[in-house]
């Protein structure tokens, strides 16, 4: 459990006289502040948190033998647009797993990153999955059928026209829904779960059930926004109430994205779990036989309590504390920086080995991921835990369209989880597994941002950020543009604005955007509003362009001045100087530092020049009218020792880290140190290979 220290000296200690009265008043003010702060969470966030557009009541049963979830869904949908709507569109995500011709599988198999693993995962008949809508009917408030819409159902492919893709369905209503009116539908469906290799499905007796029910699209900006399921894309949905009854065989431990209201044993050897949650936009759940269940609690300074549940595989029992510590670190940091987690429960699922369900977020529930014998000092399972928990802010609450602006949640969340890891843990250490056991290289510290930069470097110019997720060049570019580049961009903005102002930007954006569907322009507006400046020059280059940031110290030189050679006209006479070896007086060095902008992106950049006597000179090269290079010259009695661009590492996007600094003198010892260490490895390599002699 985490409690916050309220600080010292807040007690009401009576000391008599004026002082006592002052303290007494001060105490009351403090108490009032305390009550105010405690209630501020509640007052700023009143139920309903969101506009409840898509509300689901579901009653389903899991057949663990056939890997089938079947049942009924009653959807109450509110038309919040200003149009009459005569057609409804639904995601049938599970049909992505139906055959090799679904858009999801087609795209995945073509992807170098995934293709091999997916081909292997789709080997057997029982591995495939699908969803069948058996019946869809319009019902009245009491649930009585008004019209059977089943015959109007049709699969559509709004993104690629692939006739085999059945992940989007449309239904024609007998009468359009007027603005502000609700429609209620009863849907009977059967979902065959796939062998889990990408987020959802089963492995032996482990079930992770996500994207599993007919889910209405979002009527957005005057039209349906209901994309097909793509290999490189996640999701988009409206908020609402989820009231779900899950019936599973006894012996299975169940976790879900909702509060457990009750559970009831049935005569047929099953148990029905009733989960309920408001103001969420998806519902995922898990059932498994090998979970250990741990409960904990996190308490915000406002007094808001979050009940934590950890469902962990028995073989990972020893990692319970590591999981929970990271879980709480995310709640604390995200809560402090952006806003408190408003729900009263949060579930972390440690998925089964080889399930492919790890590292995925859903409202109030998410999956982590680890392996046997994790390395001490590494941030596994911490990294994935923080990231996926963090998605309940960037995706869960700030519910942008992940199909169209994937970077807005993945990028924001990568940046936020890196900050959290930095705040809560020392830098991770490099480790490798030898014969199944980890060996930690304590000398090698890894900053999480390092990997983002390395990934970004592999394809910085593939795409621009602002593209639909499946339209990036390939899976690698999706990773770069949804995760790495936006995270680095946010780090860069933090560097330019400073932590305080940038922190205010993030908090303001979160507060404005939570429980809505923000677009990039909403974030840009917050940046402009909070800073009081127009930052379009920044975002135009980085969001709508694919050029790179690269500043370099190209050269430094220092040479003595005043050594005259040749004919000089001095005091009316022409004097010849042959050059003197020793100059009279103090020697002055003329030093030049040449800084180049190698990338096309222009950002304000600082340059630090350090002289041999320790003197430091800092220059700022403004982004406006920034030419390809700038030269700084100095005449000083000492030479330049080194120069470095962006000395504080503010420009996280700078793609070339090596060229950021230059020293006048070469250092040989570090290269010797690492070359000899490599040589010892190589000598041993030779001896090892001679084993075969």
């Amino acid at each position, binding site marked *: 459990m985490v409690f916050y220290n309220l600080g010292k000296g807040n007690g009401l200690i009576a000391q008599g006289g004026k002082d006592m009265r002052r303290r007494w008043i001060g105490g009351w003010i403090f108490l009032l502040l305390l009550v105010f702060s405690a209630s501020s969470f509640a007052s700023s966030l009143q139920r309903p948190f969101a506009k409840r557009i898509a509300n689901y009541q579901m009653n389903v049963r899991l057949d663990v033998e056939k890997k089938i979830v079947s049942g009924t869904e009653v959807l109450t949908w509110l038309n919040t647009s200003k149009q009459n709507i005569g057609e409804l569109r639904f995601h049938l995500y599970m049909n992505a797993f139906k055959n090799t011709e679904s858009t999801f599988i087609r795209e995945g198999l073509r992807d170098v990153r995934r293709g091999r693993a997916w081909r292997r995962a789709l080997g057997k008949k029982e591995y495939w999955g699908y969803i069948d809508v058996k019946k869809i009917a319009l019902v009245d408030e009491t649930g009585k059928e008004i019209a059977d819409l089943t015959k109007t159902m049709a699969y559509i492919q709004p993104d690629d026209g692939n006739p085999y893709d059945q992940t989007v369905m449309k239904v024609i209503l007998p009468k359009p829904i007027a603005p502000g009116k609700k429609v209620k539908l009863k849907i009977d469906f059967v979902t065959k779960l796939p062998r889990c290799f990408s987020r959802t499905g089963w492995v032996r007796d482990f079930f992770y059930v996500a994207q599993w029910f007919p889910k209405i699209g979002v009527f957005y900006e005057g039209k349906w926004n209901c994309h097909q399921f793509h290999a490189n894309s996640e999701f988009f949905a409206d908020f609402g109430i989820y009231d779900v009854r899950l019936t599973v065989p006894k012996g299975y431990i169940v976790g879900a994205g909702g509060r457990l209201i009750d559970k009831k044993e049935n005569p047929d050897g099953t148990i029905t779990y009733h989960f309920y949650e408001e103001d969420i936009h998806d519902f995922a759940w898990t059932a498994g036989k090998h979970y250990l269940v741990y409960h904990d609690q996190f308490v915000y300074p406002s007094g808001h309590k979050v009940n934590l549940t950890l469902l962990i595989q028995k073989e990972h029992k020893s990692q319970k504390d590591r999981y929970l510590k990271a879980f709480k670190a995310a709640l604390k940091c995200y809560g402090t920086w952006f806003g408190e987690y408003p729900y009263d429960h949060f579930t972390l699922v440690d998925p089964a080995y080889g399930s492919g369900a790890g590292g995925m977020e859903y409202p109030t529930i998410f999956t982590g991921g680890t392996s046997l014998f994790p390395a001490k000092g590494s941030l596994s399972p911490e990294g994935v835990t923080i990231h996926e928990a963090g998605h309940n802010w960037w995706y869960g609450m700030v519910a942008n369209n992940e199909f169209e602006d994937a970077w807005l949640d993945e990028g924001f969340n990568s940046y936020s989880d890196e900050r959290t890891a930095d705040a809560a843990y020392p830098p991770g250490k490099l480790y490798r597994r030898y014969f199944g056991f980890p060996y930690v290289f304590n000398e090698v510290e890894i900053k999480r941002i390092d990997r983002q930069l390395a990934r970004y470097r592999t394809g910085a110019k593939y795409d621009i950020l602002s593209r639909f997720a499946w339209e990036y060049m390939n899976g690698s570019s999706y990773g770069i543009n949804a995760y790495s580049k936006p995270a680095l961009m946010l780090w860069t903005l933090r560097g330019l604005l400073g932590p305080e102002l940038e922190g205010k930007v993030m908090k303001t954006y979160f507060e404005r955007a939570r429980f809505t569907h923000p677009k990039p322009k909403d974030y840009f507006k917050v940046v402009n509003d909070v800073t009081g400046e127009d930052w379009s020059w920044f975002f135009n280059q980085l969001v709508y362009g694919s050029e790179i940031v690269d500043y370099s110290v190209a050269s430094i030189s220092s040479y003595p001045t005043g050594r005259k050679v040749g004919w000089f006209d001095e005091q009316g006479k022409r004097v010849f100087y042959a050059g003197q070896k020793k100059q009279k007086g103090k020697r002055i060095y003329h030093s030049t530092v040449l800084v180049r902008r190698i990338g096309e992106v222009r950002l304000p950049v600082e340059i630090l020049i350090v002289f041999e006597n320790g003197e430091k000179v800092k220059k700022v090269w403004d982004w406006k009218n920034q030419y390809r290079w700038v030269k700084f010259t100095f005449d000083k009695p000492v030479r330049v020792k080194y120069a470095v661009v962006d000395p504080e590492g503010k420009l996280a996007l700078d793609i070339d880290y090596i060229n950021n600094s230059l020293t006048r003198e070469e250092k040989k010892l570090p290269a010797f140190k690492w070359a000899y*260490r490599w040589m010892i490895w190589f000598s041993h390599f030779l001896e090892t290979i001679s084993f075969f002699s």
Partner: protein
Amino acid sequence: MGVIASFKKGFARTHRAKGMVFFLFIVNIIISLLLFVPMYDSLKGSFGKRLIADRMLKGFDYTWFLQFSQNAKGLAASFKPEVINAGAFLENISALERAGFLREEAIVFMIGIFYLLLSIFFAGGILNILSSTEGKFSLSNFFAGCGGYFLRFLRLFFLSLIFFVPVYLLSFYLSSLVYMKYADYGAEMPVFIFRTIITALTFFLLFLVDMIFDYAKIRTVAEGSRSMFVETFRSIGFVFKNFGKTLGLYYLLGVVSVAIMAIYGFLTGCFHQTSLSSIILGLVLGLLFILGMIWMKVNFYSAQLSFYEGRR
């Protein structure tokens, strides 16, 4: 002669031929230095005039490494932070189990193959010196042995591949079998256990083949035979006839080798190499480690030779 006696006698024999151990050590270091120089230049070129140099002296700049490795080609691409301390040998031992040498950079692999051929060449010299009456190292005797047995030992090497290659194939097959069988099991532990068993089996078989061919070489020198087929089969017979003892001796020598590695790993991890003196100390330790490995290589021959002579 028993295992311990052979072990002791082998050590004494190696001690008598310590000049040979130093010679082999010098050869190893000269070959390594051939690549050390371009590697040093490559690293110096990358960070010698950058502030990264200071960070690389104090520790390891992983940000630099990621960029360096993304751009590195050829020899430079073989640089990795895993060369630190125990990583230096864990990487190689692990590669031995997975045939990971095949994935090394071409230049590293080619030099490795050259060194392997050189080791085959030197094996004749080593055994010639060890089996001589005096047992003392002289270059003429050494190279006489090298030249005298090279072609025969080369044939033995090719024969040994007939055994080594199936060991790797078996290991890969069993590993994939385990992964396939337990892909749907939902728990990692069985995979880990079976993978560990496969690792142990792979090492056992690799060591067995190595031991058989060590005795084949020993027999070739001791008996002066010319048919490597015959010597291979006779060695198999010899090893299995004295299975407990041959295996015991081999593993006893193996334990000493592992101990040398462990000591090196421990000692190099005890101090930070941030100054010239500590770097020199690290270098000396590294060289002693390599010397220890070569000393053990000769010990394997001498102890097994002593054992063979005792059983003749």
